[in-house]
């Protein structure tokens, strides 16, 4: 019997002679541990309370200021100051201060590669699965890893999602995730890893795979991972990760479930309140008026999301009654978008552009009040997530959000996407 990617990774990092069979509880040593400023100082305080004064493997620790950027509260300023001091004092290996959102940032800064086992304090740590790493959110348990370098876990089963074909114009990675969620309820995903593989995966860029893997947690799974194919290896080599090698599950590995998705048949979808699992076709929701639109987050703030949004908005304006906020996921994405002229285009169309941060995703900035609606590329739409409990959040791809920002209603972006393709063809013919 062969092994899944997850089993292979856990087999390497398990302590002792653990049998890495599904359901076994093992102790394992993460290769990389990340904590945002939200909680790092709080963990260290708790550890000091029990007499822990140093980190077990500080060189493997990344601390990231990303949730409140730029800082906008006195408490936040204190927290950041303490976080900076602690990161220095405890000699953490990687410290980023306002450089971007943890998960895309760790990939961009060449800290993640196929076969790695990463532990994150933040819920959306599974985004690193885009490059074939097993990245698991542990919340407060990261304190245990900081102190001991170890964590217990149960070896999870894997759900295999085989992708075939390629997405039509107007359909994006978000729609693949939402189509997956429509087939898998939380009873199916709980305690399991979702693994994306197949020829269709090769049509998706690494940032698109971050959307797939990062949102696995919102499908109720322990983590998400994608086959590290040649496209992934080439991407990582270009970033300066010489360790990157092809990595996949064995053909005869044991999977809990297999789902086949034909990307050619996918349509734009939207998660409606009260949770990401509630998925509808975008075109069914055209009566829903929106006041706010947001493009950003760890799952959808990549250069490709910004290109997609700019493509849809080209030749259009944001609706007079809509406030469109765009947040590039990292400073490097911000800079690249500047160089490509995307931020100018988006700004001229009427978007507000802000510094890289997780802020809107959890109601840290750009809050909604009662009766307002936002369509967003962020990760969750629980009531109250962005401010008022009487506000509604809809989740969709950058293209669907951009199209909706133009019309002021939830809008299937395919007509806009088709028009953009024609426009580009005319442009290149001219």
């Amino acid at each position, binding site marked *: 019997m062969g092994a899944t990617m997850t089993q292979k990774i856990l087999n390497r990092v398990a302590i002792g002679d653990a049998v890495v069979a599904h359901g076994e*509880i093992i102790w394992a040593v993460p290769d990389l541990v990340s904590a945002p400023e*939200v*909680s790092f100082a*709080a963990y260290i*305080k*708790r*550890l000091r*309370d*029990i*007499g*822990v004064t140093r980190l077990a493997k500080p060189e493997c620790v990344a601390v990231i200021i990303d*949730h*409140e950027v730029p800082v906008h509260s006195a*408490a*936040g300023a204190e*927290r950041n100051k303490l976080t900076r001091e602690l990161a220095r004092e405890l000699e953490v290996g990687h410290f980023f201060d306002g450089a971007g959102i943890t998960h895309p940032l760790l990939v961009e800064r060449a800290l993640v590669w196929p076969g790695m086992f990463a532990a994150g304090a*933040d*819920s959306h740590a599974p985004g690193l699965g885009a490059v074939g790493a097993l990245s698991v*959110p*542990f*919340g*407060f*348990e990261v*304190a*245990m890893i900081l*102190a*001991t370098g170890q964590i*217990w876990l*149960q070896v*999870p089963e894997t759900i295999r999602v085989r992708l075939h074909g390629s997405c039509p114009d107007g359909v994006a990675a978000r729609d693949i995730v939402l189509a997956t969620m429509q087939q898998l309820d*939380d*009873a199916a*995903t*709980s*305690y399991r890893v979702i693994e994306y593989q197949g020829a269709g995966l090769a049509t998706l860029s690494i940032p698109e795979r971050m959307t797939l893997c990062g949102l696995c*947690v*919102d499908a*109720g799974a*322990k983590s998400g991972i994608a086959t590290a194919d040649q496209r992934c290896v080439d991407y990582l080599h270009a970033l300066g990760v010489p360790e990157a090698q092809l990595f996949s599950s064995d053909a005869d590995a044991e999977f809990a479930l297999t789902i086949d998705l034909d990307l050619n048949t996918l349509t734009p979808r939207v998660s409606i309140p*009260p*949770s990401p699992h509630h998925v509808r076709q975008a075109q069914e929701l055209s009566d829903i008026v929106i006041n706010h639109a947001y493009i950003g987050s760890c799952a959808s703030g990549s250069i490709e999301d910004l290109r997609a949004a700019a493509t849809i908005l080209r030749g259009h304006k944001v609706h007079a009654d809509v406030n469109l906020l765009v947040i590039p996921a990292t400073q490097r994405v911000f800079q690249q978008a500047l160089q490509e002229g995307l931020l100018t285009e988006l700004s001229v169309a009427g978007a507000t552009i802000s510094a890289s941060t997780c802020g809107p995703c*959890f*109601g*840290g900035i750009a809050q909604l009040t009662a009766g307002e609606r936002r369509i967003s590329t962020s990760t*969750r739409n*629980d*009531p*109250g*997530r962005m*401010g008022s*409990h009487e506000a509604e959040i809809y989740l969709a791809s950058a293209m669907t959000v951009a199209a909706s920002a133009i019309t002021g209603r939830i809008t299937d972006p395919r007509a806009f996407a088709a028009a953009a393709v024609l426009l580009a063809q005319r442009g290149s013919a001219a």
Partner: protein
Amino acid sequence: MSQISSGRAWKFSNDISSDELISARHVFEFDPRLLSKHLLNTVRPEFAQQAQAGDVIVAGRNFAHGSNHSHPFLAMKALGVGLLCGSLSRGPFRLAIFMGVPLLQVDSTVLDAIEDGQQLDIDFQSGSITNVTTGRIMQAAPLAPFLQDIVNAGGGLAFIKSRLPA
């Protein structure tokens, strides 16, 4: 630490999300006593004021789904309330144990036999649940002994303290 609790049942539905337990806007707060004031505020405002140590949250399936936030479990630990639920996914399951919140996963016959406000005696070590109000005695599968050790130590930090070199 005793694994036997005695108190009232606070009954909740299926699919109580992490954000419903404590809003994500309190994500920067880590003081358990402050957090306990926010627990279940939007779902049931009187809970945080009235819950006593030994009381038990009785909820349906998929408890605390969504964000992997420690905050609800810090608050539950501070209040001294335990948890009976139909199911919970791995993130909240781990966090409950790490925070030292005693819990049992139970089937629907147990959930159906408990009404809000009834008095419960629960032995988390053996999995025995007594509905004192109705006199009915029920049984659930207890946590694995390894996980009970963490809960009994008072949570993961107290547990690792015993594993660290002196």
